[in-house]
Every structure is written in structure tokens, then in C-alpha cells.
């Protein structure tokens, strides 16, 4: 488009840069207010959230148990094969427990993403068209 738009004179259907800035500021302010208000009136956990929490519980429990069981199993097989009972069993039991904990830590890391803000940061940097 033509470059006259930048000169600040009124063009019908065009928002001057100053107003645009003010509107953006107000939107950001309102957004942050909305966010704090939302936090204050935190809704009771919905059924879906409860279900997801329960699902996470099931996962954490089985992650730990799975690690310990598989570790002990590998250790037991190694001992039976090499005749070194209970050396490998103890070693792999511990490794299995560590693997289980690692699984739970990874699961928790995946979950901790903060909720998105109410007013998304807008990306158009005053491009007038």
C-alpha cells in the first residue's frame, strides 16, 4: 500500500499507531486482570481433571513396579545362567528401582506445562495494510 498511512492523518477504517498501542496496552492489562481473577476463583477440579489425575496415579504406580519387576527378572536370569546368585539379582533390582524412578521423573516433567495466558501476545508489529 501507499506510504501516506504512516503520516498520522485519518484514513477511514485505519487505526492510528498511537491508538493501536493504547488498545494493545489495555488488552494486556485486561488479560492479566482476567488471569488473576481466574486464579482467585479457581474452579473445582472437573471430572476430566480428576480422571486425568487418577490416570497419572495408575501410570506412576505401574512405572515403578514395572521397573523393579523387569530389573529383578533380568538379574535373576543372569544369576541362574552364571550361577552367581544373588549378586546380579541385587544389582539389577537396584537398577530396576532406579529405572522406575526415572520413568516417574520423566512423566512428571512432561506434565508441568503452565496454562496459556488469556490474551495471547500478539505478533503483528504495526504492519499497516
Amino acid at each position, binding site marked *: 500500500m501507499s506510504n501516506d498511512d504512516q503520516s498520522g492523518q485519518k484514513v477511514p477504517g485505519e487505526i492510528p499507531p498511537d491508538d493501536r498501542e493504547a488498545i494493545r496496552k489495555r488488552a494486556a492489562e485486561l488479560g492479566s486482570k482476567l488471569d488473576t481473577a481466574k486464579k482467585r476463583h479457581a474452579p473445582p477440579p472437573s471430572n476430566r481433571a480428576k480422571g486425568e489425575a487418577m*490416570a497419572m496415579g495408575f501410570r506412576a504406580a*505401574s512405572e515403578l513396579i*514395572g521397573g523393579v519387576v523387569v*530389573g529383578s527378572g533380568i538379574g535373576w536370569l543372569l544369576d541362574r545362567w552364571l550361577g552367581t546368585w544373588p549378586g546380579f539379582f541385587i544389582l*539389577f533390582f537396584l537398577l530396576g528401582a532406579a*529405572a*522406575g524412578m526415572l520413568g516417574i521423573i520423566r512423566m512428571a516433567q512432561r506434565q508441568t506445562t503452565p496454562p496459556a495466558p488469556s490474551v495471547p501476545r500478539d505478533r503483528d508489529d504495526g504492519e499497516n495494510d
Partner: protein
Amino acid sequence: MAAEGGGHSPIEQFAIKVVQPLKLFGYDASITNATLFMLLAVALIVGFFFVATRNPGRVPGRLQGAAEAIYEFIASTVRDNLDDGKDGRKYLPLVFSLFMFVLVANMLGMIPGFFTVTSHIIVTAALALLVISVVIIGGFMRHGIGFLKLFAPSGVPGWLMPILIPIEVISFVSRPISLSVRLFANMLAGHIALKIFAGFVGALLGAAGIAKLMAPLPLALTTALTALEFLVAFLQAYVFAVLTCVYLSDAVHGAH
């Protein structure tokens, strides 16, 4: 009769019964009640989506709305857990099929007198092995031998490797096991608990004197447990789908 809790063992419901003996290439491939209920589950799923998508309208009808809601639900689960973009989406049909099969099989099991296929570890183990095979094959196809870097996390000092590699291997091997055991154990335990508490009602009614008055207690508990079992039936299908996505994301993205 009722005095012995109906005379039924709580695990009788899991018995596999041959309906139609069948031999294929020397293998016993008899049609059992488990086969029938798996076929029923598949038939229900295919039938539902066939009817729901037969006359798609721009404004979805009731059935189409339900089908779209299920699709949206799984698609968003795949988006969240398999990470957007890349080619995570090509696994959507697999995750969707697994979720629907587990869900419908679990729900069919909640109908009194019906057989619960997912309460058998051989069924859940077969599903878990399918998932882990796809992870391994997909991972090697995409990353080649580099897929093995999954077992050697980057940014770790070299002297820790002898400890970390076994830990990572154990954690990988335990995946199909925990995946199958979780589903099977939840369904098995839930159905046994239901049967036992329901059996108490009959046992108490058959008992002498004051004990008869206690009969409503296990009945109330059975009702509550039934509601819980419906929740568990859905949750386990959901967890199965989520974990399938999480494991598949290893195949798509490679090392953490």
C-alpha cells in the same frame, strides 16, 4: 444355594470356553467366548462409525457429533503427547484403533454376564507387544542405528554410562510389561471385587437372624463399585492410548 454366595467362584467369569473347535495348520484355533467378544467389539466399533459417517452433514447430527467428539478427543491426545508436526500424526489411526478396541472391550465387560477380553493378560500383552514393535520398527526406520542412542542419554559424563545404559534398557523393556499388566490387572481386580461384594448380598440374605439386615450394605458398595468400574474402564483405555503416544514419541523424536 444362595447361602454359599450363589455357589459361584468369583473367577469363574474369566473361564475361556470353546464355542466352535477349529484346527488350522495343526494349531488349535478354536472359536472361544473370548474370540466372539473381540469380534463383537470390532463389529460394534465398525458398525458405529459406519452408521455415524454415512450421511455426513455440515451440521453434525447426534451420531456424527459423537463420532467427531471421539475423534477430536484422540486427536488432541495424540497432539499433546506425540508433539505436533513432524510425522506424529501418521500414528493417529493406530492409537485411535487401540483406544476404541480397549474401550469397547472394557465397556462390554461391564454388561452383566458378558465376558471381559481385556481381563486376560494374553490379550493385553498382545496389544502391548504390537505397540512396542511399532516403536522399535518405526524408530529404526526413521533414525537407523541412531535409534539406539535412546539408551545413552546425551549430556551425561562417560563414567555414568555403565550404570545409565542398563537403567535405560530396563526402563524400555518394562514398558510393554507395565502397559499390559496395568490394563489386565485393573480389569481383573475390578471384576473380582464386584463379584465378591455382590456374592456377600446373597450370603447375608441366606444367613440366619440379624445378619439378614446387613445385606443392603454390600449392595450399596456393589453399586458404588460399579460406577467406579465404569470410570476405570474408560480411564484404562485412555491411559493405554496416552502411553502408546508417549512411547511412539520415542520412535518419532529419537533420543530425549
